[in-house]
């Protein structure tokens, strides 16, 4: 599927070294539209609404912040560590800036582990973009869904 002009420009900003050193695409060679379409299908297959997933991830982050930078237990099931770095990151679509952070959530029930940031959740909620395969902050629909079950 072809990218729109806005997507093409955002895609350029997602490459390594533009906004973040590692970029948002990982090793994924697919077009932006193909990545979004494939992940949208994965959410549908898992029966999870991406907005509900974003709500879940934001709640984990908020609960994890109570650990004040240390790992915090959440719901007796998840161990969440919220790390903060200096600076802000603009969204590649130019619709906001986000505090530079890193949330590591480990689900002791399923064994799943995901890493994300405030910008990752925004990309999911506003643009339905989970990031490319191999991106360190990718919100893999299957892994997130497993954690939500």
């Amino acid at each position, binding site marked *: 599927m072809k990218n729109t002009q806005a997507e093409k420009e955002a895609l350029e900003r997602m490459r*390594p*070294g*533009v*906004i*973040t*050193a*590692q970029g948002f695409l990982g090793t994924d060679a697919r077009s932006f539209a193909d990545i979004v379409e494939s992940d949208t299908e994965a959410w549908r297959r898992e029966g999870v609404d991406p907005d509900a997933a974003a709500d879940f991830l934001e709640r984990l982050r908020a609960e994890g*912040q*109570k*650990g*004040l*930078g*240390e*790992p*915090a*237990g959440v719901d007796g099931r998840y*161990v969440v560590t*919220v*790390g*903060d*770095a*200096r*600076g*802000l*990151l*603009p969204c590649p679509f130019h619709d906001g*800036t986000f*505090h*530079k*952070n*890193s949330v*590591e959530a480990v689900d002791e029930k399923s064994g799943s582990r995901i*890493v994300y940031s405030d910008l990752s959740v925004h990309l999911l909620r506003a643009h339905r973009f989970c990031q490319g395969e191999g991106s*360190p*902050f990718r919100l893999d629909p299957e892994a997130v869904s497993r954690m939500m079950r």
Partner: protein
Amino acid sequence: MNPIILGPLVVAGSAAFLALVIALVDRVVNNYGEVSIDINHGKKVLKVSGGSALLGTLASQGLFVPSACGGRGSCGACKVRVLSDVGPVLPTETPYLSPQELADSVRLACQVKLKKDVAIELPEELFSVKKFKATVESIVDVTYDIKQTVFRLDDPASIEFASGQYVQIVVPPYGDIKESVQRAYSMSSRPGDSGRVELLVRLVPGGIATTYVHKHLKEGDPVELVGPFGEFRVRDTPAAMVCVAGGSGMAPFKSMFYDMRERDAFPEKEIWYFFGARTTRDMFYLDELRRLEREWPRFHFVPALSEPKPEEGWEGERGLITDVLDRVMKDKVGKDKGMEGYLCGSPGMINACIAVMTKNGIAESSVFYDKFA
């Protein structure tokens, strides 16, 4: 001539000609000649070649403004006040500048291109910041995700700093990381041990610098450090120090305590150190700090675990560090000489601790911190 050979030759020739034209035009259009940078109202005046960004030009003259992203305009750290007209604020700068900073003519040094003479203001302490060539002397795991890394300074061979300050480690391109970046870490070594710099680096998932330190850096590797930076340091008053940290936030406090002990500095100060972790797995330097507490009567160490497991046999304080802080401040911390707060950690941790400290009688103006963000 064979068209199969002629075609590529014509294309290559045209490309070379265009490149030559672009290079010539660039040389004429972008030749700004020599420009001067007036720093702090004539205190320092630099004569430099125009055309480059202010951040890099200052660095080439040995003046290092803190920057984490290597000048890509993505960290917002390299703020300087520009007193002369350098053109409008760029869209790449506005996300990082508050309305007050915009009103005060603060700009990002990496986005300001030097086209004519400029006047800027810089904090005086940046004049003593240097770039150090160093060698990794040792890397030790103090927890499963924190490494104590010691660098031997080669050139210059020693650093002058106040305990509590930080340095930036220059991370070279590695693996898929194509550009150099810099990241700030508080020094945990003592100023008295001036030939070494010790850092405590916690692995941040997806973090460029922490992954470099944890997975790529080896003993004997050459490294560049830039510093010292920061205003987080012990105040010369008799007030009790109430210090709070968790994880790698230990670093500036380790430097402060051992420096004070070595010099018997600020002898009237009582020191209370609250260190929070989730389980014993996240706790470190316990024996060392308990020994310091036994040997140094004015030092009081309060380690606390928020979720100790029964099998850990933890006999110390339990609960979130803010709850422990609240309890101990009420019951044990002497208030007769006043109190000061010292914090190192995430913005959430800092804000939560400030709330507890102000509730227990520390004025917000007497809470000092090194906020990670």
